[in-house]
């Protein structure tokens, strides 16, 4: 159920009011950034994605029908943009192999393979959290999105289903498979000599 405040904000955004846009950004910037960060696992990229999300919201607010909540729509745009970035990164990597044939050793950049540290994790859990986040990066896209939305954003399975355009049983299945896969990945890593 969409609140009256939200309906007012949407109306003001559709009228192009800058104050409404600023209000929107301030309200949702951390939500967008945190979600993007969980998926792309790089602060600079996550900020870039977050900017693209708000630009897209600004452009497409005119077509937004208030059937779903604004947050659901924004989560959807965020996860889509973040996944787009991951795909682009993968294809750049593939092309980079070809480019490296022509580069000297000094020119080719060293790949950063260290675990990503989420800034919201307490100090005593940093090491384990970094291992988990690295494992999340290896999940298939749908499982990754569901797990990040649940663990980092605290969304319920029903809310995740609304964001992903899935049914509740489908999300339950995704989460179950995500956990199984994460266990496998972590067991392999922890058992390795």
């Amino acid at each position, binding site marked *: 159920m969409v609140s009256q405040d939200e309906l007012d904000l949407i109306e003001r955004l559709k009228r192009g009011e800058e104050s409404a846009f600023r209000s929107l*950004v301030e309200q949702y910037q951390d939500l967008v*950034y945190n979600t993007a960060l969980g998926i792309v696992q790089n602060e600079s990229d996550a900020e870039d994605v977050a900017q693209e999300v708000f*630009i897209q919201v600004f452009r497409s607010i005119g077509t937004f029908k208030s059937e779903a909540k604004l947050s659901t729509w924004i989560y959807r745009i965020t996860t889509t943009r973040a996944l787009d970035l991951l795909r682009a990164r993968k294809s750049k990597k593939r092309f980079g192999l070809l480019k490296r044939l022509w580069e000297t050793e000094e020119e080719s950049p060293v790949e950063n393979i260290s675990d990503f540290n989420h800034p*919201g994790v307490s100090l005593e859990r940093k090491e*384990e959290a970094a*291992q988990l986040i690295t494992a999340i990066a290896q999940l298939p896209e749908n499982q990754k999105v569901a797990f990040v939305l649940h663990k980092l954003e605290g969304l319920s399975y029903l809310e995740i289903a609304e964001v992903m355009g899935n049914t509740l049983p489908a999300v339950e299945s995704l989460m179950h498979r995500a956990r199984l896969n994460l266990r496998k990945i*972590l067991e392999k890593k922890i058992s390795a000599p």
Partner: protein
Amino acid sequence: MKQDVTQQVEKVLSSLDQVNRASVSPYFYSSLRRRMEAGNAQPQHGFSLQPAYTILALLFLFVTNVYLLLNQPVTQEQKSTEVEEQTQWKTEYALQEVTPYQENPIEWVAIK
């Protein structure tokens, strides 16, 4: 030993419980506005046809084509067809090995 691994895995799986939400930098909004005003609202990421990559791709295609053209294998059938064509051409234009002039050379006598 296996129990230790299982315990450790469970510990890692629960390491993101009660994690705090990460926050953007304090300059996020101003940075966003600058970007929008600059009209640079194109996606920063995604496949882009940068000139260097385009040239590289075209060069690769060119080299591959040249290599394939120069190294086309000539089959036995193609060779015999070529020989036949040459023979036919010689006959048509009467290009024999030895000309009548060569068979009966005229001896030019110096006119004194």
